[in-house]
């Protein structure tokens, strides 16, 4: 296969061939190096560069659009998440407020400690109810009645106060309370104190009946008595 070349080894044509092939190898090596270097763009032809530029422009436009779409999705998700978070926080707040009002959650806050002590006569349920109503009107948010024996009853919207049939005390929500009665009320202390003090109000009333009222404002009143939530038997929501 290669024997046919030997005889003409040193002829000028062979030299030329060797030269040409050598130059080819040389150029090949150099070209391979050049195309690997970052100078490639500098050696490219104008047409190639223009095509490259338009390709890159199209790609940039596509990517920008993708960015805009993704940003929009992210904004939507964020606002959605925020909305859900806010709704959840709002629901929690309402649950807390309703729980306190219904008496199923303990509460604490600033308020008054009102102690009603009978001196000359027993304190009737009507007087205690009067006090409770007055405090409610003054903005009491949570209330409990503690008695002399250490029992405590949470006062809520459906609480009742009646005199015990045997005269031993006051019955509230099934629990018989004995004097002295301590009302722990959470609310604005100044407003509630003023409400109790109005002429002809609770304090005057109790004094007239034959008892004493001691009102103490406190930074933290703890209303810990809880009420069993039995649910409503008759009333249903209309909406």
């Amino acid at each position, binding site marked *: *296969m*290669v024997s*046919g*070349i030997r005889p*003409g*080894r040193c*002829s000028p*044509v*062979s030299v*030329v*061939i*060797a*030269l*040409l*092939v*050598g*130059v*080819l*190898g*040389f*150029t*090949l*090596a*150099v*070209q391979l*190096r*050049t*195309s690997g270097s970052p100078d490639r763009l*500098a*050696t*490219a*032809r*104008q*047409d*190639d560069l223009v*095509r490259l530029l338009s390709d890159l422009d199209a790609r940039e436009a596509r990517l920008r659009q993708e960015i805009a779409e993704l940003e929009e999705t992210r904004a939507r998700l964020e606002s959605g998440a925020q909305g859900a978070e806010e709704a959840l926080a709002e629901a929690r707040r309402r649950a807390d407020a309703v729980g306190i009002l219904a008496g199923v959650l303990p509460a604490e806050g600033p308020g008054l400690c009102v102690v009603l002590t009978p001196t000359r006569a027993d304190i009737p349920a009507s007087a205690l109810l009067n006090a409770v109503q007055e405090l409610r009107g003054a903005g009491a948010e949570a209330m409990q009645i503690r008695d002399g024996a250490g029992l405590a009853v949470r006062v809520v919207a459906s609480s009742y106060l009646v005199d015990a049939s045997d005269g031993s005390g006051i019955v509230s929500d099934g629990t018989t309370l004995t004097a002295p009665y301590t009302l722990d009320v959470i609310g604005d202390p100044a407003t509630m104190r003023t409400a109790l003090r109005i002429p002809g109000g609770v304090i005057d009333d109790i004094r007239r009946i034959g008892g004493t009222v001691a009102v103490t404002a406190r930074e933290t009143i703890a209303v810990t008595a809880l009420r069993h939530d039995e649910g409503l038997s008759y009333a249903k929501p209309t909406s």
Partner: protein
Amino acid sequence: MYVVLAAAFGVLCGLIVDPDIPVYVQPYMPIAVVAALDAVFGAARAKLDGIFDQRQFVVSFVSNVLVAALIVYLGDQLGVGGQLSTGVVVVLGVRIFGNVAAIRRHLFRA
């Protein structure tokens, strides 16, 4: 065999020496290299076919390189540089494939 040696020597020189190629030549170098390769493969096939002629190889080598570079340069001047260069590369590629297939048939009888 001396051809292979010469080629290897050229590649070695190209790797060692790092010449600065003039800028106006650089865009045409890839085409020139491919055209030269086409001539070389054609010569290899002719050798295997037994019809190799040295003079013909030299002429075909030089003319291939010059014509390819000229066509691409003309295309650039006319404004169809991209298309013409693609065309030249395609044609050279087709010829190289044909020559390589013939060489393969000779070498492996397959």
